[in-house]
Every structure is written in structure tokens, then in C-alpha cells.
């Protein structure tokens, strides 16, 4: 093979570090530069490392986790989608942990101040999450209904179908569990028993039972099927919502509003994590071992911390995009005034 052909081959391999959208935009010209560079310096480990790093950064940028390479509006949209996905992961694990504690409290109150404070913090954060989620969904739904753009029907149907599955399944399996819905003292806990049971049933798949096949085998077929189906429904819900946000032409004002809500949600996540850590660090199993923090809870806390860090970064990038949008509008106005002057 000739030297230019070898260089082209190497450039082609290096290009694979970059995401598809980036390659379709910059691929040809970047390959030309790489070929010229390879012909000049055939062996360069620095170049390989530099291209690999650039490719990873481009992938993060495409995922909305680092910025300034997309149009301001696109950057806000993509970052908000990334934020939503991180928040969904955080909520999935957080709700599983929280429902475990709320169900414990249905039977007996915690016997340490740390767990009590943790429960209050986590419950307040869950309530705040609900309020923020409703506030975030309202303008998006309104835009979807108002615009009725092509390509929105599929994601909208997916969102509705997955929400129905989660609601019906959560209600069914929540009511079927003797520790919550059917309990005679179901209202003695911090939150209503039905809410705790629904949250528990919705996140049944986040369970240490996966590591104990003998215990898992004692579950009914229906519960096992639900443990497999519910994460798919949650993923479908998050994926459908992400597609709606991506495909809907949301106004700059709505994007700015959603970005501010994202920042507020980061604060709520921090409060929830603080409560979660207080409970785990407290370490008390509580009466009848109801508040025992196991390895899965520690693992869940690690996942939630990672999701929180990624969500915070996505919110920061979305805000920088919103800032660029605002600056662009101001700049256009200023330019007009300067031109007139």
C-alpha cells in the first residue's frame, strides 16, 4: 500500500473516535488535515492521543455535557435532554431508596434522629421533584399540542403508553403488597401508605434480590415479569420525553424557563443526596431492621451521585447556551443601533 493510502487508512481509523453527526459535518476536511499531518509525521503518539481526546470531547458535546460547538438553541435542547436522562436515573434509584424507607415507617418510626431527618429531607425533595416535573412538563406539552409538528406522534404515544403501564402496574403491585396498601396502620408513616406502595412497586426492579436467585425464585411470575417490564417502561417514558423535547421547536423563553427549572432540580437533588447520605452514614438498622442500609443502597447512592454530577454539568451547559441565545439577541439589537449611529 502507498504512503498516502496508508495515511488515508490511518485517518479513517482515527475518525472513528468522533460521533457520527460530527463526522458528517467535519469528517472530510478533518480527514484531509489528518492525512497531511500523517504524511508529515508518520508516527506520532501525541496526535493519536489528541484525536482520541478530541473525539471523546465531541461525544460529550453531542450529548449536551460540554458546550459551545452547537447552535445555542440546539445546545440548550440537547443539554436539557441529557439533564432529563440523568434526572430519570437519579429519580429511579432515589425513589427505590425512598420508598423502602417510607414503607419501613408505615410499620414503625425510625429510632435515630439522623434517619428521621434523612427521611424528612428525602420526602420534601421528592415533593419538590414532583412540583418541578409538572412545571417542566406543562410548557413542553403545551408546545407539542400547539405545534403538532411532524414526527411528534410516535414519541407522544410512547410517553402515554409507558406512563399508563407505570401507573397501572404500580397501582396493581402496590395494592397487592401486604405491607402497604392493605396495612391497617397504613397512615401512620411520613407519607400516605398508598404513595409509598406505588413508589415501591414502580421501582421494584431496583432490588438486591437480583443477587439472590433463591429469594428471587419465591416471587410470583407476575412480579418477576413486572420487575423486567417496569425498567423498560421507565426507559421508554424518558426516551419518549427526550424525543419530544428534541423534536419540538421550543421558544427561547421556554428553553430558558426549563434551564432554570433544571438548576432548581439540581438543588433538590443535592438535598435528596444529603438525606440519603445521612441515612447511610447513620447506619442504624432501626426497629425490626426496617431501616437497614445495604450494599445496594450504597451502590444506589454512588449511581445517584454520578447522575447528579452529570445533571449539574448538563444544566450548566444548557445555561451557557441560553446565555449565548440571549447575548445573540442583544448583540443583534446593539448592532442595529450601531449601524444606525
Amino acid at each position, binding site marked *: 500500500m502507498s504512503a498516502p493510502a496508508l495515511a488515508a487508512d490511518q485517518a479513517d481509523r482515527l475518525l472513528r473516535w468522533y460521533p457520527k453527526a460530527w463526522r458528517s459535518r467535519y469528517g472530510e476536511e478533518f480527514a*484531509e488535515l489528518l492525512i497531511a499531518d500523517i504524511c508529515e509525521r508518520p508516527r506520532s503518539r501525541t496526535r493519536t492521543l489528541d484525536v482520541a481526546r478530541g473525539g471523546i470531547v465531541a461525544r460529550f458535546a453531542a450529548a449536551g455535557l460540554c458546550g459551545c460547538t452547537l447552535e445555542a438553541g440546539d445546545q440548550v435542547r440537547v443539554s436539557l435532554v441529557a439533564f432529563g436522562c440523568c434526572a430519570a436515573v437519579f429519580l429511579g434509584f432515589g425513589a427505590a431508596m425512598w420508598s423502602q424507607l417510607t414503607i419501613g415507617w408505615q410499620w414503625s418510626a425510625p429510632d435515630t434522629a439522623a434517619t428521621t431527618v434523612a427521611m424528612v429531607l428525602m420526602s420534601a425533595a421528592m415533593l419538590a421533584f414532583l412540583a418541578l416535573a409538572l412545571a417542566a412538563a406543562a410548557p413542553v406539552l403545551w408546545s407539542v399540542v400547539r405545534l403538532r409538528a411532524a414526527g411528534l406522534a410516535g414519541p407522544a404515544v410512547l410517553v402515554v403508553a409507558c406512563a399508563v403501564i407505570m401507573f397501572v402496574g404500580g397501582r396493581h403491585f402496590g395494592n397487592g403488597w401486604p405491607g402497604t396498601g392493605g396495612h391497617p396502620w397504613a397512615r401512620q408513616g411520613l407519607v400516605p401508605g398508598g404513595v409509598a406502595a406505588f413508589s415501591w412497586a414502580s421501582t421494584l426492579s431496583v432490588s438486591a434480590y437480583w443477587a439472590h436467585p433463591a429469594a428471587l425464585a419465591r416471587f410470583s411470575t407476575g412480579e418477576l415479569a413486572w420487575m423486567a417490564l417496569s425498567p423498560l417502561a421507565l426507559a421508554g417514558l424518558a426516551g419518549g420525553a427526550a424525543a419530544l423535547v428534541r423534536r419540538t421547536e421550543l421558544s427561547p423563553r421556554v428553553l430558558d424557563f426549563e434551564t432554570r427549572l433544571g438548576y432548581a432540580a439540581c438543588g433538590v437533588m443535592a438535598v435528596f443526596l444529603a438525606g440519603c447520605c445521612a441515612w447511610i452514614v447513620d447506619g442504624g438498622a432501626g426497629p425490626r431492621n426496617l431501616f437497614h442500609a445495604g450494599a445496594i443502597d450504597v451502590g444506589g447512592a454512588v449511581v445517584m451521585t454520578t447522575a447528579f454530577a452529570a445533571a449539574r454539568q448538563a444544566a450548566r451547559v444548557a445555561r451557557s447556551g441560553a446565555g449565548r441565545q440571549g447575548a445573540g439577541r442583544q448583540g443583534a439589537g446593539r448592532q442595529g443601533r450601531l449601524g444606525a449611529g
Partner: protein
Amino acid sequence: MPGERSSDGLDGFGRYAGPATLILASLADGAKHGYALTKDIESFAGVRLAPGTLYEALARLQGQGLIEPVESHDRRRPYRLTAVGARALRAHLDAQRRVADLGLRRLASGWGLT
């Protein structure tokens, strides 16, 4: 908002401000494609920008509206400075010159280095 705080349009670039300034300075005398940019920057700054770093900065500069691609039938697409980019470069270099002037004056008075 970050955009409102920006004094010269390059504040948000952080550690990419170096490559960004070099690229904008190189494009100040006309459009250039990637390889020509690398060579020009190497000649006037003594720095060879690696391909990944160069295109990371180009993508950011384009996203910020400081440069724009020029229509080309060649696979090597040239870029040129926009009016916003020219103003941003001017403001950035003015700020750098103020720092350089001050540093040189202090070196001259304090260390006798002229």
C-alpha cells in the same frame, strides 16, 4: 448570564482561549483551511496545533459565531473570520496588550530589563 459577562467573546473558552486566539489571529488576514492554519500558526507562534485540538477550537469558534466556513468544492474547507469574531479578537488582543505593556514597564523599572 455568561454571555453578558463576556468582555471580548473569548472568556468562555477557558483553556481553549489559547488555540482560539491563535486561530482568530491567523484568519485575520484571510480565509484558511485546517492544514494552512496549522502551518501559519506554526510559523508566527512557533506552536503546532494538533489536529484534534485545532478542530475542537474551530467547532467552538463556529458555534460562537466568531468564524464561518467558506463555500468550497475542495474537501479542505476554508474558514474565515466573522465581524463578531474580528471584534472579539480585537478586544482580546487589546486586553493582552495592556497586560504585556504593564508587565514590560514593571520589568524595566524593577529589574532594569528593557
